């Protein structure tokens, strides 16, 4: 199999498992799905009719096929709670979640890489010790605790940032005012996620850079009299790049999980909080759809990371047999 066939089939497998999990979870819920929308006084004929309408009289594999087909065409059914199509509810939320996660991941990765490189260059300095500590702390502080403290300090006690929501109510008129308001609401969540995320990155980058800098080809580059900057960017960082991409790829599921918590703390209008509300409200179609979308986001990012990986490390594109 070629590189791309393997990658895409892997992604399809993940999506397939997510769909199966979704379907199974939906089946596990207490009672028949029909009972939740039906009056107990319904006659048996009406009940049977309703079961037919929902396709519940068909065998399980047919139901699963139907479910997969409708989910893949983004038809998630109607929310139990609001009575509106789930797809409409989600459409307005996906950009918010993507903006939150994308910005914070970009910021924490770049800040962490920069600090980690600095720390690796200055072994034993105060900066290195700070980086090591910040990494250990970011692993053991619960994200929601740090966010709650930030929220209390910077939004409640010192009202620099809004306390809740993705936009002011009512949202300001005009393009610039709207954009500014959006950024203002997003600033604290992104700041908190960056604070929580950069430590792990910095530690990883520092360890990797220290290892790479001990290699012979770096010594060789130095002996050739190459400028420091060029050694750092062209040799050290270039060697680290594929590994860093792997790290990015592996951190994605955790980042997406973090969206649920962050959006709950800051009451953002996003997919994560929608998922929480759906789960606590036993709104199964909505919960399944939100879970599917979050997984889809992860899988899509994974594929993107694979694409980047094959650009920075072309060896992976080679067939195993060809090598």
């Amino acid at each position, binding site marked *: 199999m070629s590189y791309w066939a393997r990658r895409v089939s892997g992604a399809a497998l993940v999506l397939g498992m*997510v769909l199966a999990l979704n379907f199974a979870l939906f089946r596990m819920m207490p009672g028949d799905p029909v009972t939740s929308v039906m009056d107990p006084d319904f006659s048996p004929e009406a009940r049977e009719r309703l079961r037919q309408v929902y396709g519940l009289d068909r065998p399980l594999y047919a139901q699963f096929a139907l479910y997969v087909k409708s989910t893949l065409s983004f038809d998630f059914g109607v929310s139990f709670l609001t009575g509106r199509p789930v797809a409409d509810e989600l459409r307005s939320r996906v950009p918010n979640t993507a903006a939150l996660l994308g910005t914070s991941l970009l910021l924490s990765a770049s800040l962490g890489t920069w600090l980690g490189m600095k720390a690796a260059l200055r072994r034993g300095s105060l900066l290195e010790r700070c980086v090591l500590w910040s990494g250990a702390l970011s692993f053991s502080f619960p994200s929601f605790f740090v966010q709650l403290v930030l929220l*209390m300090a910077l939004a409640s006690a010192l009202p620099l940032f809004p306390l809740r929501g993705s936009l002011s109510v009512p949202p300001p008129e005009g393009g610039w005012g709207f954009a500014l308001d959006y950024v203002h609401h997003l600033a604290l969540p992104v700041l908190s996620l960056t604070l929580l995320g950069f430590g792990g990155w910095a530690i990883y980058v520092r360890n990797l850079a220290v290892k790479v800098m001990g290699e012979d080809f770096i010594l060789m580059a130095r002996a050739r009299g190459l400028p420091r900057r060029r050694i750092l960017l062209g040799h050290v960082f270039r060697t680290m790049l594929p590994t860093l991409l792997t790290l990015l790829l592996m951190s994605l*599921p955790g980042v997406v999980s973090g969206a649920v918590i962050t959006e709950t703390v800051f009451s953002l209008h996003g997919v994560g909080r929608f998922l929480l509300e759906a789960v606590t409200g036993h709104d199964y179609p909505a919960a399944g759809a939100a879970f599917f979308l979050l997984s889809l986001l992860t899988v899509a990012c994974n594929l993107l990371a694979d694409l980047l990986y094959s650009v920075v490390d072309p060896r992976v594109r080679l067939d195993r047999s060809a090598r």
Partner: protein
Amino acid sequence: MKGLARRWGFWCLVVLTIAAILGERLFAASPGDQVAAPFSKPIWLGRYLPPTMELRLTADSPSATLDWRYSPPSGLSLRVEGPAGETGRFVELVRPGSPPLRLAPVREGFAADGRDIAFKRSLGLPPFKDASAHLFPERGEYVLSLTDGPSFEGSVVVRLEGGRYGLLGTDQRGRDAAALFVTGIRVSLIVGLFAALLATLLGTSLGLAAGYLGGWVDAVLMRTVDLLLSIPLLPVLMALAALWGRGLWQLVLILSVFSWMGTARTVRSLILSLRDAPYIEGLRGLGASSGYILRRHLLPETFPVLLATMTLGVPGAILSEAGLSFLGLSDPRVISWGRMLHEAHSFGAFAAGAWWLLIPPGTGISILCLAFLDVGKHLEETADPRLRRSRT
């Protein structure tokens, strides 16, 4: 063991475990009871707030003088205890610069609260505010006394709710936050330890199977690991917690089913490196069965590493439990640190500025996690002394 005693994390865990075992026995009231006004501050904070006080007036000591140097109390209640009958006496309050005010008749079984509308109306106070703010409007000397009358055997208890209570104040229901904090240790420890233990058992058996049997078993198991590591787990945990019930043990089960992957990978790679070692080959040549080799030789080899991975896995379970509780997906009757943070976030601690409900549970979780990480790192170094070099 000697090295362990020099680790701060070990002693931290010892102290926390003792606190978890003693639990609510350290406190006079049960942690679920209301002990003071909601959102009372810690006792060492806010000297302008009155502490909670209870005054007892009897026929022998019919008056009490209060040197009031605080803002108004946050609540007031009054009850008559013991045989009283119709005494014709009254409870009177003398405020600085105002005539005496008759608060209530001393009658058997009489009880009143500053929030009762009938009580406020009898005093001519506005019905929508707490009576205590009107009765104690300013600083100065207040005298509470019983008027003269026929003999009276019982006593009148006047309780003034303060704005300060205990080491850590109170939460939105007036429960002692210090008692809640200490009770919460137990949940974190139980969930963390048992989830990590179960996950390690699961991961070890699957890792052993994958590593030793190889072939399609290995392929299937390792693909499953890859799959589980590439979907966001929190949503799955949320759905399971909501569907499966929210009890402590269900949570332990859910967490362990989704956190065995790391251990399985470690054990598998360890077994792969050992499987073809000369002494195993020798054993096989001597006719030892697979079960015997696994049980007596391969499994013991993995023990030190397993102990370390288990300890290092505890923080993950603790953080997951705290996260789920914070999202409100835990049993509301079980007090845990995550639940405390959930209630602080959802029930108005922010509006009340009650940071004392936020900082203790959060730092508690972090300290517990750091302690387990510290001990785990020590165990890891013992299992693999090469790691020790990297500390310098």
